[in-house]
Every structure is written in structure tokens, then in C-alpha cells.
């Protein structure tokens, strides 16, 4: 990790990073995900990379979390409903200080706290276990409603891909969210257009997605945000803060497998082990991206 970035993320008290810093950090974290996924020969590159900027922005700019008190009742909550992107969440949590970065290479080994899919009672900082697609939004509604019952004022973020939106439970949750209007519930869609078997257009078309949120009574951002551009992500955060109408949904245009050109947008890189040849070629591209972004620091 670049020493400037390292000192920024170690600052106490934690100071939110700006767009330039976040971009450079996300590029570094993406490479680290790539390295561990390659060395372990298991895990999901496509969806981890797709959300690298989103989770980096949440944890290093926006969310009120405290690694020294991971279950702080006032903390903001995050549910990775697309739990197969666990490598992404673990990398972000480790660098945010929830557990040692040196735990990451143990990903998915027997005895590691870094399970195949996030496990809230094993890994510090994980707010909900996920893996079976489709659970996240319902649980997020419950967490957000609990803030009202308990007189707390935290945000609840749910991140999902297309997969969760295929599941019927999500649409039950969509209905009930517009009934209960849970305050500070933000549903973030990592909309890369590719799932396990193929593109969403082939497997289960979702467009026009924003219209669906509208018709279900949600406050959905009228513009699509670019989920790989930190300025765009920070704009989306400003939109979230622009009024008090809940629940909110934000659709982020993303690219599955982002950062490695020959893996981008391909369902075959959803969960395939990364072979040595693809790894060395991919690493060159990811390093170049880091260099470009760190030059702006």
C-alpha cells in the first residue's frame, strides 16, 4: 500500500477520504482482492471487482463505523446481499481496521474466520451473514425499522447485484419497504448487467429498473451513477442527503470484473479460479491503474 494512503486510512480519529484518495485506495484494494483470489484459486472476482469503488467509498468516506467497537449500536449498517463478493468486503474491512490485513490470504481456508460467504459471528465488522441471494433487502428493512423503534439514527445500506433482484423475496421487500418507509434505508444496486449464467438481459431482464422502484413507491435517484467514478459516487451520496424521503434506491452502472480488460463483462469470470496466465496479464493492468490514480494524490 502506498504510504500516503496508508497514513490516511490509519488516521485517528478517522477522517473521510476525498475522491482522489478514494480512487487510489479502491485501485489498491482491487489489486489485493485479485491477488488473494488468484492465490486461493477460489472465490468470485467478477462481482468483487465490480463493487470495489462502492464499498471503498462507503467505508472510507461515508459510513459511521468504529473498528474498536464493531457492534456499536449507533453504527451505520451494511449488508452485502451479493455475499459471493465476500473478498471485496473482507479487503475493505481489513484495511478499515476491523481485523489484520494479514488475515486476508487465509480467505476460504479451513479454520479461517474469512468464510466463503460473509459470516457475522465469525468476522468482525460483518453486520449480516449472506450467501443465499435475495435476503438482504428484507433484513435491511428490519435493521432500519429497528433504528426507529430504538430511537437511533443510523443508516442501513444494502448492496445487491442482479441476482438478488431475480428472487421473489426482494419484490416482497420492495412492497413492504414502500409501506413501512424505513428511515435511512438505502438500497444500492451494483448494476453490472451480468450474472452467473450470462447477461441479465438473457437470463432475466430487469430494465427499466428505476421505473420499477418508482412504481413500488420508492425514492429512486433519477440519474444513474457511475459506480467506478468516485466523483459520481460522492454525488450519489449527496443525493441521498438531499431530502428526507425514504426508502431510497440508487442504481450504479458498473462493469463486472472491472479493471482487467479481458475479464470485463464476462459471466465466465463470475467465479472461475484465476489461472496464472490471466493473473500475470491482469496484474499489469491493475498496477497501471494504481499508478495512474496515485499520481493524482
Amino acid at each position: 500500500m502506498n504510504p500516503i494512503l496508508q497514513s490516511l486510512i490509519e488516521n485517528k480519529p478517522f477522517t473521510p477520504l476525498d475522491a482522489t484518495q478514494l480512487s487510489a485506495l479502491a485501485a489498491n484494494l482491487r489489486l489485493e482482492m485479485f491477488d488473494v483470489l488468484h492465490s486461493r484459486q477460489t472465490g468470485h472476482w467478477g462481482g468483487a471487482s465490480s463493487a470495489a469503488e462502492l464499498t471503498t467509498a462507503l467505508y472510507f468516506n461515508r459510513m459511521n463505523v468504529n473498528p474498536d467497537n464493531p457492534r456499536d449500536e449507533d453504527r451505520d449498517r451494511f449488508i452485502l446481499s451479493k455475499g459471493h463478493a465476500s473478498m471485496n468486503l473482507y479487503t475493505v474491512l481489513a484495511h478499515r481496521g476491523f481485523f489484520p490485513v494479514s488475515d486476508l490470504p487465509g480467505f476460504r481456508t479451513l479454520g479461517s474466520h474469512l468464510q466463503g460467504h460473509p459470516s457475522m459471528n465469525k468476522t468482525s465488522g460483518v453486520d449480516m451473514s449472506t450467501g443465499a441471494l435475495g435476503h438482504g433487502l428484507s433484513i435491511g428493512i428490519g435493521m432500519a425499522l429497528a433504528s426507529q423503534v430504538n430511537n437511533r439514527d443510523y443508516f442501513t445500506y444494502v448492496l445487491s447485484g442482479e441476482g438478488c433482484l431475480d428472487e421473489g423475496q426482494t419484490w416482497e421487500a420492495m412492497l413492504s419497504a414502500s409501506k413501512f418507509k424505513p428511515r435511512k434505508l438505502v438500497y444500492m444496486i451494483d448494476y453490472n448487467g451480468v450474472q452467473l449464467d450470462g447477461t441479465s438481459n438473457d437470463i432475466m431482464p430487469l430494465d427499466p429498473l428505476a421505473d420499477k422502484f418508482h412504481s413500488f413507491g420508492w425514492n429512486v435517484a433519477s440519474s444513474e451513477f457511475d459506480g467506478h467514478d468516485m466523483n459520481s459516487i460522492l454525488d450519489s451520496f449527496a443525493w441521498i442527503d438531499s431530502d428526507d424521503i425514504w426508502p431510497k434506491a440508487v442504481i450504479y452502472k458498473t462493469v463486472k470484473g472491472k479493471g482487467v480488460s479481458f475479464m470485463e463483462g464476462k459471466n465466465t469470470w463470475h467465479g472461475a479460479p484465476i489461472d496464472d496466465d490471466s493473473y500475470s496479464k491482469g496484474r499489469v493492468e491493475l498496477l497501471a491503474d494504481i499508478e495512474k490514480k496515485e499520481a493524482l494524490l
Partner: protein
Amino acid sequence: MSVAMREAFGKKVAELGKTNDRIVVLDADVSSSTKSGLFGNEFPERFFNVGVAEANMVGVAAGLATAGLHPIVNAFSIFLALKATDQIRNVFCYNKLPLVIAGAYGGLSDSYDGASHQSITDIAIMRALPEMEVIVPCDAQMAESALEYALTQNKPVYIRLNRNAVPDVGLPFDAAQKKGVVVKEGSDVTLAANGITLSATLEAAQILEGKGIKAEVLAMPFVKPFDVQTLKASVEKTGRLVSVEEHTVVGGFGSACLEALSTEAFNYSYRAVGVEDRFTETGGYDELLVTYGISGANIAAKAEELV
């Protein structure tokens, strides 16, 4: 090692599709994992990928089944058994409609994905449903036989498949007989193996042999209907039973053995091998099997406790 069971099964589905035009195949965005895509490539007009929506998939299959078609639904076994149980029970079983439930990634075989994906309660759930049949093949060839058999039935049949290449046991097996197979004869203890646990069980028999204990090994792919005759004949002779399954010991194959023998007059002693009542975890498949006791050494140790 043979081809992976899922590969063999997927190929067989595609092959049978050529001669059986009643077959329709459904998948829930995992057709490249379950290998149902092989059928999809050949018969796109009889293949429906419904996205990640297991309950919807089974409901759609039911509609197809009412019109004379024979659906084969494919998804990870844990999600079929948990997300589509209602549709399987209240639509298929209740109305006795034909269905093949191809439960991919059975047992611990989706090992690295961890507890959320490991299917260790599917057998207990499926076998509790009236009209359901439950088959757990021990190798690729048995899986193919189970498929051919299931397609002759006018009711739901659950076939639990393994993700990985497992050793070919090559037993004489015709699923239509609904019988277990005596793989090795012995007189001291019966080792009844369900599914792919057969190879570890045969290893256990060898370990026991070295200690002068003669184990009889049964391959028991049918959990339901249960082949009580084969089990009874063996346990009556040995007076000792160890059941072995890649599943929780609560309500699965071991429980089916005990229920089957509960009305018999003879006494026998018993040990269960399987996942104790707990959640499993991430790891390599072989190391997980050993961790949860599905190993030659542990099965032999359990048998020794009885002798």
C-alpha cells in the same frame, strides 16, 4: 476418478432429451454449474432459465407438468430444499405431479462457498414429504441410472448430486429395483453407506479387516422408499449397524435406517456417522469430509466401539 457427477448427469439429461420429448429442463441461473446448459444448448425450446428464482422455477415446472411434460429442475440442492420447499410440497407432492429435482452441489461438495451453500439438511426435508422419493447416488453411473428411473415415475423424485469427481464404484445397480447393494460381505458389523460416503466406508472396512473385524458394506442410495429388506438381512446377521451419510445426523439417512428397523424384533447396537447437529464451514472438500467424520478412520473407529 470419473467425470464429475454433475457433468455425467448433465450429459445424460441432454442425451435423453433426444428420445424423450416430454422432458423440459429448468434452471435458476446456475446452468453452467449444474450442467443443465448442455440440454439447453441442444433443446433451447424446452429449456427455461428463470434467473435466481428457485421458488418461481418450481412453480413454473408444475404448470408444465400439468400438461403432460416431465420437468427436471436444476439448482443448488440447498436452495431447492429451502427456497422451493413450499412449491415442491404443496404443488408437486400434494398433486402427485411428475418432477425430477436435480439437487446439485449436494452435501459438503460446495466446500469453499461455506455453510450458506453446503447442503446438509436436504435429505431430511425431502424425505419428510409424502409422495417424494429420495435417491443419493454414490457415483456418476448411479446418478444416470437414478435419472432414467425418475423419468419413469409419475411423481416427484429428488436426486442429490455431487459437485466433484468422485471415485467410480461401478456397482451393478438398476435404480428401478429401488434396492441397496451388498458391496462386501461380512459378519461382525454392518456399515450402511449413503451416497458418496461409500468409498470412505469401503476404506473403513479395510481398516477393520486388518483388525480382524469383518464388516459388511451396504450401498444404500434410496433413502425413500427405503430398502428395509437389505438392511434387515444384514443387521440381523451382524447385530451392529453404523450408518454413514454426508448430511446432518438429524433426520436423514441414519434416521431412516432406525425407523426402518424400529419394528423388527432383533436387537442391535448402533452408531451414526455424519455431520453432528451443527453448521459446517469453508475449506477443501476432502479436508471437510475428514473434519466432519466422513473418513475411513472415523467410520472404522465408530464400528470398533460396537464390537
